[in-house]
Each structure stands twice: as structure tokens, then as C-alpha cells.
């Protein structure tokens, strides 16, 4: 037997000391998160306090307001904070909602397919495919969107009369809600699929066998038993995907048209071809105006809204997954 404590793990690496060091590391990361939250809200406060709840309301053009805010910061005489973000919020809601809805349905079918119905060879293809789609950088999705999807929508889906009918208000060039929703769907669906699959796999086999033994066919067993008992995983996957979708800045900034405009469903189906800009890309677009104090506060206010909604959804996902572990599922 060699020495009991090799020198490197000797007094220097005593257990208490290691525990304290790791504990300090953990506390540092927790502290960093707290610092992030506090910083973002403190910086955002001037914008919120000047606008009150009107911050979330509609009124005026967002672009013009952002410009006024920026210029007032440069002149320095009297800071302007007036900002009504409804156009951006509405765009975020439409794009995120549309993409999550589409992704939820398709991810549910695909994960059921992967777990229950796909032949082995198909499963062996689909799983790497899902992993690959989840790992493609968003800027590549954005590039393909700008160079392939957007021209296709602009040249083939939107007709000339449609373009003419709204020509006075906004130009339809293909940069649209539709492009954003479609590409975002492809980006977040794989995320959902992998979590749904984990949930479906951890359903107790006995429950499925019981249903099968009663003569229920595999399709209905899967949907009535497996999908229902995997509901926590489905909730968890969905909210995580929502959090991801809300924070997507680069791809949406590229394909959504990047103009502050609120597409109006009352216009009829044409509204899906209308451009807009969600909250997150607005930060990227205006990042150069960070030096102007009121712009800085406004951008941090947008970030605070993103942070709050993303944190809310992450928290909901965490709760859902804890609920799931009650049923013995370990995803």
C-alpha cells in the first residue's frame, strides 16, 4: 500500500477544504445570476418609471421614439424616455406563438413516431437528424432564411395585387411573419422532440401493457396512455422552447423584416406576409446606441422584459419537471 494521501490530495486537498471551495464556486455563480438580474432591472428602471404601464402599450412609431431617445442622450440637455413597445411585443407574441404552436404539434407527432412507431432504421436516422437540427447555429438558419425562404415568399407566395393593396402602408418583400414563424419552428421543434422523447420513454411499461391487454390498439394506447402520462415532459419541453423562441435575436432580426410594425390580423390572411420586429432583435439592431444614456435604459428595459418572461418560462419548466419526477419519470 502506497502512501494513504498522495501529496497532491494531502492537506491541500482535504475534504472540508474542497467542499468549501466548491461551495464558494457555486455561490459565485448564484451571485453572478443575482447580479445580472439586479443590474438589468436597475439599468432599466428609468425607462419603466418614465413610461409606467404605457411602456407596454401602443402609440406612435417605435423607430421614431428610439431615434428621439438616442438623440436626446447625445444632446444631453433633457433626456427623452417616451417609449411604447406594443409593436415589438405584438410581433414577439405572434412569431413566438405561431412557431410554438406549429412546433408543438409536429414535435408531438415526431416524438411519438420515434418512440413507438418508427421502424428501427427510421429511428436511427431520425434521432441524429433531430440532434443535428437542434445544433445548427441560428445565424445559418437566418442566412438560409434570407437567401432562400424570404425570396421565395416574396416572389411566389405574395401576389402583386396583394402587394399593391397595402403599398401605402408597408411594402411586402418577403421579409415576413411567415418566414420568421417557419424557421423558428424548425429551430425549436427539435428541442421539444428530445424532451418529449425522454418523457414518453419513461412511461411505465405496465400501464401501456395494461391498455394493450384490454385490446386497445397501439395508436390509441400511445395517445391515451403514453402521451397523457408524459404530459409534464410535454409542458416542460414546450416552455423551454418558448423561452428559447422569445430570446431568439439574430435569426429573427434577419428574416422578420426588422421594421417596427404591428401586423394586423384584421387585414385578412395577408398579415402573415407583413414584416415586423420582435423585442430581442430590436436590441441587436440598436446596440450601437448603448452609449446614449436614455437609449441604454430603453434597451435594458427590453432586456428586462425578455429576462422576466424567459425566467418565468424556465421556472415553469422546472416546476413541471419536478412534478414529473413524482410519477417516477426521470427526464
Amino acid at each position, binding site marked *: 500500500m502506497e502512501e*494513504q494521501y498522495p501529496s497532491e*490530495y494531502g492537506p491541500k*486537498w*482535504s*475534504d472540508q477544504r474542497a*467542499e468549501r471551495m*466548491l*461551495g464558494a*464556486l*457555486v*455561490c459565485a*455563480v*448564484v451571485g453572478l*445570476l443575482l447580479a*445580472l438580474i439586479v*443590474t*438589468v432591472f436597475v439599468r432599466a428602471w428609468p425607462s419603466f418609471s418614465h413610461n409606467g404601464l404605457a411602456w407596454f402599450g401602443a402609440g406612435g412609431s417605435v423607430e421614431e421614439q428610439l431615434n428621439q431617445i438616442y438623440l436626446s442622450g447625445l444632446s444631453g440637455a433633457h433626456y427623452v424616455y417616451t417609449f411604447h413597445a406594443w409593436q415589438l411585443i405584438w410581433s414577439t407574441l405572434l412569431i413566438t406563438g405561431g412557431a410554438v404552436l406549429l412546433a408543438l404539434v*409536429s414535435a408531438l*407527432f*415526431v416524438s411519438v*413516431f420515434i418512440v413507438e412507431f418508427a421502424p428501427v432504421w427510421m429511428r436511427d436516422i*431520425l434521432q*441524429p*437528424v433531430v440532434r443535428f*437540427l437542434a*445544433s*445548427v*447555429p441560428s*445565424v*445559418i438558419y*437566418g*442566412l*438560409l432564411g*434570407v437567401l432562400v425562404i424570404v425570396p421565395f415568399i416574396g416572389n411566389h407566395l405574395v401576389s402583386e395585387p396583394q402587394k399593391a393593396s397595402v403599398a401605402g402602408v408597408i411594402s411586402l418583400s418577403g421579409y415576413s411573419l411567415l418566414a420568421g414563424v417557419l424557421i423558428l419552428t424548425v429551430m425549436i*421543434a427539435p428541442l421539444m422532440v428530445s424532451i418529449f422523447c425522454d418523457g414518453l420513454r419513461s412511461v411505465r*411499461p405496465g400501464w*401501456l*401493457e395494461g391498455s394493450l391487454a384490454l385490446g386497445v390498439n397501439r*395508436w390509441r394506447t400511445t395517445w391515451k396512455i403514453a402521451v397523457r402520462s408524459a404530459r409534464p415532459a410535454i409542458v416542460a419541453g414546450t416552455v*423551454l422552447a418558448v*423561452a*428559447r423562441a422569445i*430570446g*431568439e*435575436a*439574430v435569426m429573427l432580426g*434577419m428574416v422578420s423584416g426588422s421594421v417596427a410594425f404591428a401586423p394586423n390580423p384584421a387585414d385578412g390572411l395577408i398579415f402573415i406576409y407583413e414584416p415586423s420586429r420582435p423585442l430581442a432583435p430590436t*436590441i*441587436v439592431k440598436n*446596440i*450601437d446606441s448603448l452609449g446614449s444614456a436614455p437609449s441604454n435604459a430603453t*434597451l435594458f428595459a427590453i*432586456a428586462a422584459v*425578455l429576462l422576466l418572461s*424567459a*425566467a418565468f418560462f*424556465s*421556472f415553469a*419548466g*422546472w416546476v413541471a419537471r419536478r412534478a414529473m419526477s413524482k410519477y417516477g419519470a426521470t427526464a
Partner: protein
Amino acid sequence: MGAPVATPPESRPPTVAPPKQPTEAVEGSATWQLSDRIGLAICWALGLLFCAIAVAIVVYLLIQGLTYLKPSMLVTPATAGFSQSQTGGFSDALIGTLIVGTMGIAIALPVGVGIAIWLVEYGRPAGLARITELTIEAIAGIPSIVLALFGTVIFSSTALGFLSRTTEGIVFGRSFFAAATMLSLVALPLVVASTREGLNAIPQHVREASYAVGKTRIATVRRILLPTARPQVATGAMLGLGRIIGDTAIIVVLLGATQNFAPVGSTFPLNYLRGAGTTLTNFVYEASPTGNLNQPQKAYAAAFVLLLMVLALNAAVDVVHRRARKVGTWSS
């Protein structure tokens, strides 16, 4: 007396067989109602659609990449010019991606593994453990653009001015240090989750055996648990690396709007790391029609290189997984 004991095992194997094989062998969709068969058809259609999208992305970028990518682009830096033939390549972006990836993972890996060890092996007090789990979950959910904005606050402070360029008392705040630090937060949750999974998969008796021969907990972790969990740690690191090299928002905000290295000072490795720079994602972003450069052909070429990196990382994860399965784990 022996007979009743002996009969159950004989009749058992057919019923004990894994539940899925027999059902698959027995029941096809031929007997199902129409609605169920339509549902199955939708499954197939969507499954094939996913495959088609993936194939389309790879093939399209492959064609565009092979058309526009010239080897010279990989070794020439970007220069200003009027047409796409005059503007050089993206060597700075390529090197920048490697630098950011290395630095980011160099921060995220030790921190992430440390947190995972603390969570699985120590985890006292329980309240702090729960808060930590929540923190990691929250960091995973923070949009990277918010991390980037937070980074501008940290790295523009005078205390950290030595990490980037300072002109007339105003700290620029854009450097490889800034970008890599914030990007490591993007990779952190993946490293933690994967390492935890690996540590949790090691059964308790392995630890008890180690304690029984007088090893401390930390010695057990370093000598036994971490080597066993190495495949999962590697997986986490590679997944994190994939997220780091694929991130754009943080790069655009914290690394600078330049397409070349902008070294600060003169100490060799540090001057580049303190200066602004670019990465492939930033190059693609700027070279796309919506960016400032508008050179779609080079954007395709750079995107192709980036996609190759992502594919290589995916393949590496697969290899690690397969090898880990072949070697076998404690629990099997």
C-alpha cells in the same frame, strides 16, 4: 413439490420479454380505424419532413459552399473592397471562432464540472443545492442577447478596463475576454447537466467501496468518479462548444463590429485577446444581405465551414456515446 416451483420459470420467458418487441411483431396498422391510420401517416410525413429539412440544409450549403469556398479564403483576412473578389477571405473569423471556443470552454468546463460535483457529491445545505439547480436552469433560459447586454456593463467598468481597449478613460468593453466569459455562461448549463447525469449514473456502492479503503470524498471524486464519468463530461463539453461557436448575439455585442483582429498593446497572445475581433457567426451575420457587408457568396462559404464544425462536433458526440456504451457502465 419441485414441479410447481419449476413450472413458472418455464412459462415465464415469453411474457417477460421486453414489452415493445412482441407488440411490434404482432400488430400492424392494417386493423386500425381510418383515423388512427391517418394519424400514423402524419407521423411518417412529419418524420420524413424533418429528414428532408436536414438533408436540404446540408446539401444546399454543401453545394453553395463548394461553389464559393476557395482555400485561399481560409488563410486571407477580410479586407475592404468593392466587389466580392477584392474583399479577401475570413481567416480572422475562423481563428476567432477557435479562440472563442477554446476560451469559453476553458472557463465553462472547470466551473461546470465543479458545480456538478458539488451538487451530486456534497449538496449541503439542501436549500443552497435547490437554489443552485434553479440558477443553472435560469442561466440556460436567459436569452443570449440579455447576457450580452450584461456583459457590456461588466466589461465597460473601469475595474475591468485592462481586458479591453481604453480610450480617454472610456472603456471599450469589446474583447475576446469579454465575449468568451459571457459565452461560457451559455455552455455552462450543458456541462453541468451532462456531468451530473454521468455522476448520478454511478451507483452508490462504488463510492462506498472507495470510502471503505479510507479515501476522502474529494479523492474519490478525482480518482474514481470523474474518470468514470469522463464520457458524459466530454459530451457536455462538446455540446457546450457547439453552442459557443454557434452563438451570434454575444459576439456581435461584445466582440466588435470589425472583420479583423484589432490587437491592443504588444504582449503577444494577450494583445489579440484584449482586442476586438470576429468569428464565423459574426462574419456570416455581417456578410448576409441584411448585414453591413452584403457578400452572400462569402456568407455561404463561411456558413459552410461553420456547418462542418457543427457536424464534426455532432459526430464526436456520437462516437463518445458509442464508445461509452461499448465499454459498459457500472449500472449494466
